[in-house]
């Protein structure tokens, strides 16, 4: 057992850090103040990600045939840590490289791979994820958006909600129902967002501009070739995708670096001698490191090819706890810095922290998975 980084892992991290030092512009911290789904961050990602791709650092973990370098699972994760520590300059494109691309690689047709993977690997694709609906949030199986067969096409009707990045996305990874069978009636469609019949309404929110939307599908016609995977087999694909997504984001690293920033400001204000502040900083630090170790354990299992397990939900809950511990620490001891916006990473961190227990599978859903799969507690009978 070894809790330190190997030589090649450290070298890879140094490569990422060097790239960020040389390529992140001076005004990045200003751009990062806007939400990850904002026009500013999206446009920035379309300039920054191609440079990352050119340096071999956008999709290094993808197989070489799809533009990657065949980097290890750990190297992929180190890349994510450094990107998140820098405020995630990939903007919405982190989704493409973490789970949308790998899902298309595994389940897509040759045509879909050819159409979508090169653009994602070159840093030119913006996707949104059409999962949640007004009546199907955490209970995803209850989704109602329909896709009816019409000859060689499907006609999609319904609506999605809380859809991140939809305002500027060029494609949607859409879940829709082709039959009434619960899990077995759900299919995935890759839908161009400029298809007639799609309309998007931004939802003003606490989590950053341009981040969440409603998306309406009104007789949206897509060819049958837009379906990803076999009809009725979407649930196993979704499980695979969410398994990649749930621990794919090293949020604790952003929290940890934000905590460093908060402590630095408290030192500047000559408040670091306060024993209670130190105690609370220690609490928040422990929460970050607890999350880190549980996430690393999942990454380690993944690196050995182990199937996804409830361990990822244990880790997700710890990550949420860490996000909140750091945000609460900042709000308690440096509230003026939130009001005055005089530390550039604070508001973005806070916005991500308040969303982290909601997005990508709510915290309470993770606890339910832990209860049933890790603790093996009995199901609550349905009403």
């Amino acid at each position, binding site marked *: *057992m070894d809790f330190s980084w190997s030589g090649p892992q450290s070298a890879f991290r140094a490569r990422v850090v060097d790239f960020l030092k040389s390529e992140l512009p001076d005004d990045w911290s200003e751009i990062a103040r806007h939400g990850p789904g904002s026009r500013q961050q999206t446009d920035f990602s379309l300039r920054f990600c191609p440079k990352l791709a050119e340096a071999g650092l956008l999709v290094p973990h993808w197989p070489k045939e799809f533009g990657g370098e065949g980097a290890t699972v750990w190297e992929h994760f180190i890349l994510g840590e450094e990107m998140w520590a820098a405020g995630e300059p990939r903007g919405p494109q982190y989704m493409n490289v973490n789970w949308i691309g790998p899902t298309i690689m595994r389940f897509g047709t040759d045509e879909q791979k050819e159409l979508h993977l090169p653009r994602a690997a070159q840093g030119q694709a913006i996707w949104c994820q059409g999962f949640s609906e007004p009546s199907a949030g955490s209970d995803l199986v209850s989704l109602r958006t329909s896709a009816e067969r019409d000859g060689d096409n499907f006609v999609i009707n319904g609506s999605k909600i809380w859809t991140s990045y939809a305002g500027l996305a060029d494609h949607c990874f859409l879940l829709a129902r082709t039959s009434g069978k619960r899990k077995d009636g759900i299919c995935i469609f890759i839908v161009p967002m400029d298809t007639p019949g799609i309309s998007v309404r931004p939802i003003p929110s606490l989590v950053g501009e341009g981040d969440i939307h409603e998306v309406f599908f009104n007789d949206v016609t897509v060819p049958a070739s837009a379906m990803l995977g076999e009809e009725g087999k979407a649930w196993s694909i979704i499980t695979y995708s969410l398994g990649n997504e749930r621990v794919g984001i090293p949020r604790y690293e952003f929290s940890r670096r934000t905590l460093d920033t908060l402590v630095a400001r408290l030192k500047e204000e000559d408040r670091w001698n306060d024993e209670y502040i130190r105690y609370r900083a220690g609490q928040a630090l422990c929460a970050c490191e607890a999350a880190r170790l549980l996430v690393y354990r999942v990454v380690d299992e993944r690196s050995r090819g182990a199937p996804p397990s409830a361990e990822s939900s244990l880790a997700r809950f710890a990550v949420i706890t860490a996000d909140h511990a750091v945000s609460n620490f900042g709000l308690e001891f440096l509230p003026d810095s939130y009001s005055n916006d005089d530390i550039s990473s604070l508001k973005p961190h806070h916005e991500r922290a308040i969303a982290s227990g909601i997005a990508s599978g709510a915290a309470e859903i993770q606890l339910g998975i832990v209860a049933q799969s890790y603790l093996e507690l009995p199901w609550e009978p349905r009403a």
Partner: protein
Amino acid sequence: MNFAVPEECNALIGALEKLLAQAEATAQAVDGSRSFFTGALDAALEEAGFLDAAGLEEFGPIAAAMVVQEISSKPVIVEAAHSSFVRALALPDWPRPIAVLTGKFDQATRFLGVARSVVLLGENHARACRIEGKDTIATEPFFAYPMARLADPAACLARSEVVSDAALVRRLLLVATACELSGVLKGALFSVNEYVKNRRQFGRALGSFQAVQHRLAMCASTIAAGEWLARRAAVSGSMEDAVMAAGYLQESTSRILYDLHQFMGAMGLTLEHPLYRWSYRAKLLVSDLGGASRQLRDVAVIAWPETA
């Protein structure tokens, strides 16, 4: 990074599980004692060498961490943590069981009544003293451990000898506490988990209520993190990791124990059910070496030193 348990450790833990299962099968019925010491098992563990793993090249500190966590997760009380870390790595020639005293060396401490050596941890040095006939006075049981204090701390101090640098022993004690506390909390969690699976109220298992499930799941996430923080501290040898592991677990303990006792109901108040064997050890371990408040302040100072 490599979280895989080495083959040798797996074999060691497999053998330990067998010994613990045997001890459980032959254990005497609960006699209503609030504190106790599983002396025969303690001797068997020593004889088989399980408590020496940290100092052996083929095993090392990770094996010691897993041994302590495994033993502590069972409803037995043996002196495993101090021996596995402090004795194995700082005073290997001293007889065990080992008790530890800090401050003025006049407080009651666990295992002192059954110990053959006591470590007196001062500011700069760790001293050790062999325990003789009338050195200790047993105290009224409150915690599940056997507790005693020194009859004459000054006399014991006068007989003692310096055995190690205080910083090393303090770090090893923090790791020992973290490993023991993570094992104790895990044992308590799974004991309560088993209970709520089987105990039926309102026509269904208690464990099927979401309110119960989610709080136990929160406990599980915290305990799993503590378990790995303790292992990292054992392996890395870093003081920052040691104070972090101990502080994180000590800080989390009261919330976890509240939930576990809540879900066990009145049964958890009895000496028939073994929950107290874990919870009343945890209630003592939270104060070790200054408790969470000291560890969390210390970890902050190490992570963000004044001069940085």
